[in-house]
C-alpha cells in the first residue's frame, strides 16, 4: 500500500499526460480544458509528493529528501503559474495547446527525476528528454524561419552533448552509473579517460544550464521564441538542473578531478562576463534577461568553486531567488501587450508605467532583486555568494562578481528608463486579472522573503 502512496505523485503526472492525450484524441476540447487537466495533475502531484513521499522510496536510484521535495514543489508551482499565464496566449493566438501541456507535464516529470536521481544513467536520460522537450518546444512553436534555423542548431548541439555524455556513460560501465560508486570506479584510470568522463557530464550540464562558453543557445532561442516557450526555457528546468548538477558535482566530478574548481572559476567568470556584457548588447527584453540569467549561473558556479565540500546553501538560495524574480519578470512580460501582440523590445514599451503603474512597479522590484539591491531577496543571494567567496579568501573573484554586476546595471537601467521615464507611445491592452493575481502572489512571496529570509532555508 505504501508503495502505491509513494508513486501517487508520479501517477498523477502520468494521468495528467494521459488525460491530455485522451482529450486530444476523443474530445472537442479547448485550450482551457487542456490547461485545466494539466494544472490539476500538477496540483495533485505536488500534494501527493508532499504528503506521502518517503525518503526510502526508489533507493538506490533516487534519494528523496527535503531538498528534492522542495525543489519539486517549487518547480511545480512555477510550472503551474507558467501554464496559467500561457493559457491566455494560446487563447488569443488560437493555437492548439494539447502538445504544449503534454510536454509541460513531461518536463515536470523529468525535473522531478533529475532532482532526486542518484544514477548517472537516469540523470542522462532525464537530461536527454529535457533537451528533446526544449527542441520540440522550439520546433513546434516555430513561426519564423529564424526560429527554424535556431531550433535546428539547438538540436544538433544538444545531440553532440548527448553523444559526449553517452561516451562518458559507456566508459563508466553500468557498475559505475550509481553516483555513490561512480567516483570509485575511476580509481586507477588514466588522465585522458577521466577527462573524457568529466567532459561528458560537465558539458552536458553546462550546455543545459547555459554556462559560458556553452551559453550560446540560451539568448538565441529565448529571443525569437514565443512567450510561453521563452518563459519555459528561462524558468522551469533550472532549479532541478542545478540540484542534479550539485549532486553530480559533489559525488562524482569533484572527487575525480583535482583542479575542477579552477575550471569552474574560469567558466564562472566567463559566464559572468558574457552575461553582463551580453545583457547590454540588445534592446530585446528577453535577451537582456537571458544575459542576467547567464550572469547568475556564473555566480552560482563560482560559489560551487568556493564551497567544494557540499551543495552550498548560498547557491541554492541564490538560484531560488533568481527564479522567483525571473518568474515575476516573465509574468510582467505577459502584461506587455498592445493590440493583441506581446511586446518584447524596449522601444515598444515606452511609458508603460504611466499606463500600468502597478505592473511597472512590480517589474522594478523584480529587477531590483535581480540587481542585488537591499533589502530585496536578490540582495542576500548576492550577499551570501560574496560572503562565501570572501570566507575562502577568493577576494579577486568576489571583486569580479560584484564588478560585473555593475556592468549588468546599465541593462536594467535602460529598461527602467523605457518603462518609467519615456513618454507613453501606445495604448497598452488591458492587463488580465490573472497577471495581477500572480504578480501580487510573487510580490507577497518576496515580501515574505524580505521579512523572513529563513523561509529560504525551509525551502
Amino acid at each position, binding site marked *: 500500500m505504501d508503495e502505491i502512496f509513494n508513486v501517487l505523485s508520479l501517477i498523477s503526472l502520468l494521468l495528467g499526460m494521459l488525460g491530455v492525450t485522451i482529450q486530444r484524441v476523443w474530445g472537442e476540447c479547448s485550450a482551457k480544458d487542456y490547461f485545466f487537466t494539466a494544472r490539476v495533475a500538477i496540483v495533485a502531484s505536488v500534494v501527493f509528493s508532499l504528503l506521502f513521499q518517503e525518503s526510502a522510496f526508489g533507493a538506490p536510484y533516487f534519494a528523496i529528501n527535503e531538498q528534492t521535495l522542495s525543489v519539486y514543489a517549487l518547480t511545480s508551482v512555477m510550472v503551474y503559474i507558467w501554464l496559467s499565464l500561457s493559457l491566455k496566449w494560446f487563447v488569443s493566438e488560437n493555437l492548439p495547446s494539447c502538445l504544449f501541456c503534454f510536454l509541460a507535464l513531461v518536463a515536470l516529470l523529468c525535473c522531478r527525476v533529475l532532482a532526486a536521481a542518484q544514477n548517472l544513467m537516469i540523470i542522462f536520460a532525464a537530461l536527454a528528454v529535457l533537451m528533446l522537450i526544449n527542441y520540440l518546444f522550439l520546433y513546434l512553436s516555430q513561426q519564423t524561419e529564424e526560429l527554424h534555423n535556431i531550433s535546428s542548431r539547438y538540436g544538433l548541439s544538444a545531440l553532440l552533448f548527448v553523444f559526449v555524455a553517452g561516451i562518458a556513460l559507456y566508459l563508466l560501465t553500468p557498475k559505475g552509473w550509481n553516483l555513490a560508486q561512480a567516483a570509485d570506479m575511476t580509481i586507477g584510470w588514466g588522465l585522458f579517460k577521466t577527462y573524457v568522463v568529466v567532459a561528458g557530464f560537465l558539458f552536458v550540464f553546462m550546455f543545459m544550464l547555459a554556462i559560458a562558453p556553452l551559453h550560446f543557445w540560451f539568448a538565441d532561442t529565448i529571443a525569437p521564441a514565443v512567450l510561453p516557450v521563452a518563459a519555459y526555457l528561462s524558468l522551469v528546468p533550472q532549479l532541478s538542473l542545478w540540484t542534479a548538477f550539485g549532486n553530480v558535482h559533489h559525488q562524482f566530478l569533484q572527487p575525480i578531478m583535482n583542479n575542477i574548481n579552477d575550471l569552474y572559476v574560469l567558466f564562472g567568470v566567463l559566464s559572468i562576463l558574457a552575461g553582463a556584457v551580453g545583457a547590454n548588447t540588445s534592446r530585446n527584453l528577453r535577451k537582456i534577461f537571458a544575459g542576467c540569467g547567464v550572469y547568475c549561473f556564473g555566480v552560482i558556479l563560482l560559489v560551487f568553486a568556493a564551497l567544494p565540500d557540499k551543495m552550498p546553501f548560498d547557491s541554492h538560495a541564490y538560484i531560488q531567488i533568481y527564479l522567483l524574480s525571473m518568474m515575476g519578470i516573465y509574468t510582467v512580460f505577459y502584461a506587455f501587450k498592445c493590440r493583441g501582440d506581446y511586446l518584447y523590445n524596449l522601444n515598444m514599451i515606452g511609458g508603460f508605467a*504611466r499606463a500600468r*503603474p502597478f505592473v511597472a512597479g512590480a517589474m522594478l522590484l523584480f529587477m*531590483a532583486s535581480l540587481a542585488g*539591491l*537591499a*533589502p530585496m531577496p536578490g*540582495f*542576500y543571494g548576492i*550577499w551570501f555568494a*560574496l*560572503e562565501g567567496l*570572501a*570566507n575562502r579568501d577568493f*577576494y579577486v573573484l*568576489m*571583486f569580479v562578481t*560584484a*564588478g560585473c*554586476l*555593475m556592468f549588468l*546595471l*546599465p541593462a536594467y*537601467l*535602460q529598461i*527602467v*528608463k523605457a518603462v*518609467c*521615464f*519615456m*513618454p507613453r507611445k501606445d495604448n497598452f491592452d488591458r492587463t488580465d486579472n490573472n497577471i495581477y493575481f500572480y504578480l501580487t502572489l510573487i510580490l507577497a512571496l518576496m515580501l515574505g522573503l524580505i521579512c*523572513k*529570509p*529563513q523561509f529560504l532555508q525551509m525551502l
Partner: protein
Amino acid sequence: MAEYLLLIVILLPFIGGLFVAASHNGDDGVSRNAANVAVWVVCCNILLILKLFSLLGVDQNGLQTAYLPWVVAPGGLLSFCADILSLMIVLSIHIAVLIGVFSLRDSCGSQKGVLFFSQLFLCITSGFFLAADLFTFYVFFVLMIVPLFMQIGFCGGAGRKTATRFFLYNAWGAFLLLMSVVAIYALQDQKATIYIENISEIKLSGNFAIFVWSGVFLAFVLRLPVWPFHYWISSVNTVIKNPLVFTSVNLMPISGLYGFIRFWPAVLPEEIAALVPVFEVLCVMTMLYLAFSGYSSTGLRDKLFSYIFIYYLLYLLGVFSPTDVLKQNIAYSLFAFLLVASGLIMIVFHIDKESEKLQNSANGILCLQPKAAFSYAILILAGVGFPVSALFWNNFVIVSEILNTNVGIGSIAVFTMLLAAIFLLQNLYDLRDKSCMLPGQEKIYDIDNLRFVVSTIVMIVLFLSFIKPLWFVY
C-alpha cells in the same frame, strides 16, 4: 519608547509614500492631494524627531539602540541609534524635503512619482543616518540612490540620460563599500553585529587593511563633489527642472560626508591617513574650481550649486581636521546650511520660472517680486555666513580648526567662501537692479503667500538657531 520612536521615524515616510502613491490626482493633473499627504507625513515625522531630541537629551551621547530583526544581517538584526549629529541631519533633511514639496506646487510633470520617491528617500536617508552597525549603514547607503535615480528620471528630457549616469556612478561607490563590508564581515569568526562606534576595534593588517579602507574611503569620496568626481552631480544639477528633485540630489553628498564623520579619523590605517594632505589639497582645489565656475556662470542654479558644494567641501575639510570636537559644530552648521540651501532653491526655482517670461536676462526681476526679494536677500545673508544663523559661529569654529591644522588650506577655503558669498551677493544685486528691467514685460508673479510663510518660518528657525542651536529641545 525611544527605540520604537526611532523605528517609526524611519518607517513613517515609507508608509506615507504608499499613501502618496495611492492618493487621488486632482482634475487639473496636478497632484495637490499627493503633495498634501506628503506634507502631513513629513510634518508628523518632524514632530517625532523633535520628540526624539527631547528623549535624547542634549548631553547624552546616544539613544538606546533600536533593532529590526533581519536574518540576512550579520547578527540577525538591523540596528539603529541616534545622537545629536545624526538627529540634526535627519531633521534638516526632513525640513529641506518639506520645503522642496512646497516649492513643487506650481511645477508640472510627474509629481506623484516624484513625491512618492521623495518619501522613500526620506525613509532611506533616515535609516542611513540612524544606522548603528556597519551592515545597516551599507544597506541604506546603497538604497539611497534608487529614489534619486527615479526622481531624476521623472524630470524628463535630458534627465533620463543623466539619471542613468547618476545611478551607475553612485553604484560604483556602493560596490566599493560592499567589497569592504563583505571583507570585514568575512574576517569575523562568527556572524556578529559590528557597531560603527566600535569599528576602530577591527584589526586589519597590511595590504588587506589598505584594500578595505581604500574601498570605504573611495565609496564616501564618490558621493562628494571632489574633483574629478564632482562631474556626476554637476551634470545632474544642470538638467533638473524640479525643485524637490534638485533639493534631494543636493542632499545626497551628505551621505559621503556623514560616512567620513563616522569613520574618520580613528579607524583608518596609517597608509591611508598619509594621503590625507593630498586629499585636502584636492578638496580645496575643487572648492576653488567651484568658486571660479560659480563666479563666472550666469545661471542662477549653477551659482547655487557651486555655493552648496563649496560648503560641503568645507565641512569635509572640517571632518579631516584631527579633532572630534567639531562634530557638533558641523551638525549645527549643516542644519542651518541645509535650511538656507533648500530655502534658496525654492526661491531660485520660482525666479527661474518667472524669468522665462522676460525677453532678456532675469536681472531686475526681484523689483517686481517684493516677497521673493525679501526672502532671497535674507537667505543669502544667512547663507554667506552673516550672523543671522547657526552657520556663522559654527563655521567660525570649523574654519579655525582647519586653519589650526593647515593655514594654507584654511586660507584658500576662506577665500572660496568669500568668492561664493560675492557671486551670490552680486547675483542678488543683479536681480534687484531696476535699471535692467525692460518696459512692457509680461506679468511677473511674486511667490505665493504659502511659500512666503514657509520662507519666513525658515528665517525664524535660522535666527533661533543662531541664538541657540538646540532651541527646540526641552
